[in-house]
């Protein structure tokens, strides 16, 4: 898709908005988007633009992943379907294609980022414990960065205790 402003470069920023009482979609190239002050930190935000540069999942990821046609049982998607549409078909796709999605997800969220926020009620004991361990490890890193070794020692003991519990299960 060409940029609606310059009509030359590929559009990578896609805006969906309301103007003059109507719903409109606006497609801009990176340069025009920057010039117009509408640059997204992540281009292609909210879109399913599998083949465009900066898209959440790119075609190179497919090639790297090979051609085994593993299918998600919940929605019927193959990995290729995800890269074609730029979106997984259901939550289970993240589980089924977890390893293959990893490089793309790391591109978005960074290498080491893991969820540290709210946990739903239905989460298992295991999940809760693992989550707590992740949280503590982050605190531990921070404590070490701040040279707060006393706190770091406490955190390390707590992590060991939880990890031991986990091993027993």
């Amino acid at each position, binding site marked *: 898709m060409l940029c609606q*402003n310059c009509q030359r470069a590929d559009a990578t920023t896609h*805006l*969906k*908005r*309301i*103007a*003059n*009482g*109507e*719903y*409109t979609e*606006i497609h*801009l190239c990176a340069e025009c*988007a920057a010039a*117009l*002050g*509408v*640059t*997204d*930190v*992540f281009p292609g*935000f*909210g879109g399913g633009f599998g083949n465009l540069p900066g898209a*959440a*999942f790119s075609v190179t990821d497919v090639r790297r992943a090979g051609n085994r046609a593993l299918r998600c049982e*919940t*929605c019927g998607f193959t990995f290729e379907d995800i890269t074609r549409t730029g*979106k*997984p*078909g*259901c*939550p*289970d796709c*993240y*589980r089924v294609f977890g390893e293959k*999605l990893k490089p*793309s*997800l790391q591109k*978005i*969220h*960074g290498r*080491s*980022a*893991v*969820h*540290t*926020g*709210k*946990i*739903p*009620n*239905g*989460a298992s004991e*295991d*999940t809760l414990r*693992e*989550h707590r361990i*992740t949280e503590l490890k982050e605190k531990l890193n921070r404590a070490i960065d701040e040279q707060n070794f006393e706190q770091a020692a406490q955190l390390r003991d707590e992590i060991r205790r939880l990890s031991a519990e986990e091993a027993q299960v």
Partner: protein
Amino acid sequence: MSTGTNAKTAYPQGDTVLSSRVRLARNIDGVPFPVRLNATRRAAVNRKVCETLQKAGKKMRVIDMSRLYPYEAVALAERHLISPEFTSGTEGRVLLLTEDERISIMLNEEDHIRIQAIEPGLAPEQAYRNAAAYDDALDAGLRFAFDNRLGYLNQNPRDLGTGLRVSVMMHLPALSKTGGMSKFASMIAKLGMNVRGSYGDAASVKGDIFRISNQVSMGITEAEAIANLKTLAMQIATREHTAAADFVKDIGVRDRITRAEGVLKNAMLLSTDEMMEMLSWVRLGALYGLNGADPDAISEMFVSLQPAALNVTAGAKLTSAQRDELRAEYVRRKLNADGE
């Protein structure tokens, strides 16, 4: 510390921050994302969510998006109660809305469930608490798709983690009119946040109103994301205060402010663009004691006099000329009454 011009508005940091908004994206485990669902399965999602909320004693208005006139749907987006894309492809989409409109839940948007809470002024914590109460209520009756490492499993991989977007809508006339915002944009991006115009198309920001939002939802807690955004909003507010203090001393600027007031108090026709521009000047003047207008009332007019909103007020799709007349009439009445 700059206290700014808070005294003139009823809301926290209300001189610069018009509203705070949070959005939580959630999906039901084992169910394909809405784009892969047919009408029957979308309806099943809607029913399940409504039943769960009912059981939790949460009373909400149920709005079937496919039954609205297009302008009615667009008016909801103008008020920021729904996303722009929720107004198109409305089959099987339902909006749940509390009486006071502070909580809205979009069903079958990009995700099964998008909970949104809005508060006036700088109050993202309160907005989050309100949204979280509905999240908890839904969590009690539904199984949310969740992964220990990836967090909430949402359709857009950028929404993994907390599924939280926090944003503030800010009126920044001095920064915007002196060209200070463009310098800010790259700094804001480096902090993992995003800034864009809240109204108007891609090419122009209307009314000097900007939306600043977090972009990072992974590896960060809800409280951290909210605190980060709040800190940034306060910094921007301080810069606006500094810029405005000099800006409003300029005779040229004062001239623009008084002329804008003259236009709004006398115009017989007022386009959206002209209204946004003139209201921005008058609101700036009001904050610095240059006129008697009420800043909060102007904040409200930015929203309520948008095109589709006027159609809703009139109960019919008006022509652009009819809207301009209605808009001018409303603004004249409002500003002439305030001044007395």
